[in-house]
């Protein structure tokens, strides 16, 4: 309740006096009580002046993670860092469970806040949609389900959410990604993965999104790089999964493919192979698209990067991570004519996870920019890069 409304209640109570003294007392007491109860101080942060992203390479993109950021000032600060980096595009997650907590009752405040700040920073937004509200999944005590468990009977509910999102943000969001890494059991609610079911979900979402906003790009896939074979409890490799999607008729129901490709320990130019996880594995997915008549479709790499944790077996040293990241951008600019964006996972986490995932970020949770941030900024903005920032190996004198 606003301060003005409290004042009105106060005046009204005084005016009633003798005739309705009891009611007046009640109102007076109520008003005093309401005034005494501390009200939350608004933490709204001004959007500020309209900004433009200064960049020499519009393919540079970062994945942000602002959906769990409580303070609006931190949302804005993260997006300022994305703009200053020279990233013209961001990928951001918009969890269904947050914005439709009850069936048909949307609550867009959190999404509005992120998107309005992103747009004010001049950033193009690609929205990743997923995460199932409790009301849309079975959740009995005998069979608890995770937030990634989407039963087939809720596909239309998800499609309605996606359509409502596409309608509301018609002017401010460029594309939506339908689900995240459905080829992993973990991301498919700890069930055996099912390309056919994903295609049915995609079909439901595509139809409703296009009916709501025909200009919204619908991105499919966002498949995780993995070597899992058919029947694995953990998932299915993305090459077989994409092939199965085409066999189930997915070609007509997405506008572009979202790809996740990580370098792991390989250099960006290392040759791809079906049994190897590396950066150019994305080319194998592209080959599958071409083989199924989708050569004209664009590709967005919506997650990519190298990790520099000192202990994780999938990581490289920080110096190499920096070099590989820049080389990857140079490589795609020269070779991947079909690529729209290369998005680095991730700009920043709202809180440290205290393990190797923290070493994918460009900025720490407490907003310290890592050396890789500056290196990528130099590349994105076309600035001259400094010389090698480390000393030669020490030699005994």
């Amino acid at each position, binding site marked *: 309740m606003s301060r003005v409304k409290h004042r009105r209640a106060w005046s009204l109570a005084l005016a009633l006096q003798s005739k309705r003294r009891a009611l007046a007392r009640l109102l007076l007491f109520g008003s005093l009580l309401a005034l005494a109860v501390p009200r939350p101080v608004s933490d709204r942060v001004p959007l500020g002046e309209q900004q433009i992203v200064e960049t020499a390479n519009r393919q540079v993109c970062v994945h942000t993670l602002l959906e769990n950021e409580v303070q609006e000032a931190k949302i804005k600060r993260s997006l300022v860092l994305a703009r200053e980096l020279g990233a013209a595009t961001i990928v951001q997650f918009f969890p269904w469970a947050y914005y439709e907590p009850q069936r048909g009752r949307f609550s867009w405040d959190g999404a509005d806040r992120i998107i309005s700040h992103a747009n004010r920073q001049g950033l193009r937004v690609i929205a990743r949609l997923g995460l199932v509200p409790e009301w849309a999944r079975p959740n009995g005590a005998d069979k*608890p389900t*995770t937030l990634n468990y989407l039963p087939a009977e809720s596909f239309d509910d998800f499609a309605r959410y996606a359509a409502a999102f596409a309608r509301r943000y018609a002017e401010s969001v460029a594309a939506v990604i339908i689900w995240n890494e459905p080829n992993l059991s*973990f991301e498919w609610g700890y069930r055996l993965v099912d390309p056919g079911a994903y295609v049915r979900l995609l079909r439901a979402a595509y139809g409703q999104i296009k009916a709501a906003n025909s200009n919204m790009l619908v991105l499919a896939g966002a498949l995780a790089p993995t070597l899992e074979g058919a029947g694995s409890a953990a998932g299915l490799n993305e090459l077989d999964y994409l092939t199965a999607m085409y066999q189930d008729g997915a070609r007509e129901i997405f506008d572009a493919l979202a790809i996740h490709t990580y370098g792991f320990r390989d250099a960006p130019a290392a040759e791809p192979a079906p049994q190897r996880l590396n950066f150019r594995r994305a080319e194998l997915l592209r080959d599958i698209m071409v083989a199924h008549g989708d050569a004209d479709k664009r590709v967005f790499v919506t997650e990519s990067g190298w990790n*520099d944790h*000192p*202990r*994780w*077996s*999938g990581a490289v*040293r*920080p*110096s190499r*991570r*920096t070099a590989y990241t820049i080389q990857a951008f140079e490589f795609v600019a020269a070779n991947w004519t079909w690529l729209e964006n290369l998005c680095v996972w991730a700009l920043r986490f709202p*809180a440290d*996870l*205290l*393990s*190797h*995932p923290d070493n994918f970020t460009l900025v*720490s949770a407490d907003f*310290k920019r*890592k*050396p*890789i941030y500056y290196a990528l900024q130099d590349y994105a903005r076309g600035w001259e890069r400094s010389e090698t*920032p*480390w*000393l030669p*190996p*020490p*030699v*005994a*004198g």
Partner: protein
Amino acid sequence: MAAAARRRLKLASAARSAILAFAIAGALAIVVLSRRSAPPDVKSAFPAGEIVIGVDASFPPFALDNGERIEGLDIDLASALARELELPIRFENIGFYALHDALISGRVDMLVSALRVDPARMDDLRYTQSYFDNGLVVVGTRDTAQADAEAPAKARIAFEYASSADAEIRAWEVDGQWITMLPYELPEFALDAARLGLADGAVVDATTLRLYLRARSEWTPRYEYITHEPYAIALRIDRAEAWRLVDGALDALKESGELVTIIDSWL
């Protein structure tokens, strides 16, 4: 007389009531205290008759799947704990992102996976005491703490470029301005610089230092922790009995020296 007798009777009755109440309270206290001090029961703490361990086996030398089996410090530690508790053990190799879900959903009994204690997870998890501290250490042959701003030469500190040591040292520079920073491409180069006297000290994580020293037993530098990253075992918050057993077993491994032996065999 009658009134006096009634008064005495009343007092006696009140005294009896007080004694009774005191006795009941005492009995309750004894029951509660005896329950608290009773040793936890292994069978009820692990009703399946085995301990299922969740581990991310992509983290050498703590845990690594070498294609044939999982091995590492965490594997040896978990096995030693199971021996203490006289229970069979089974490992589930789970990626980090799904590790905590596996614990909370009951798929595994506990996580032994080079986990740093995370206060943000304490609503769901209960950590044991720490078994290893992988914080940053400053390593040197002279006391770098003596090299303050008044010294004619700044302390020369070597570290790995863009590592957690780099972030820590750059924060010192903002605060103190008494350091000459020597970034190297690899942490081993930073330690080489300290060993060869080209730097007054190096800052690396404890694991890196221990692995480096294993290969260079002739060098016995001084070192001191400057940050702390305690690794601990995590159990679900509602498994207090299991937690007490595991924490007690960890105590026993520390007291017997077996924990040090396990750590020394890998680091």
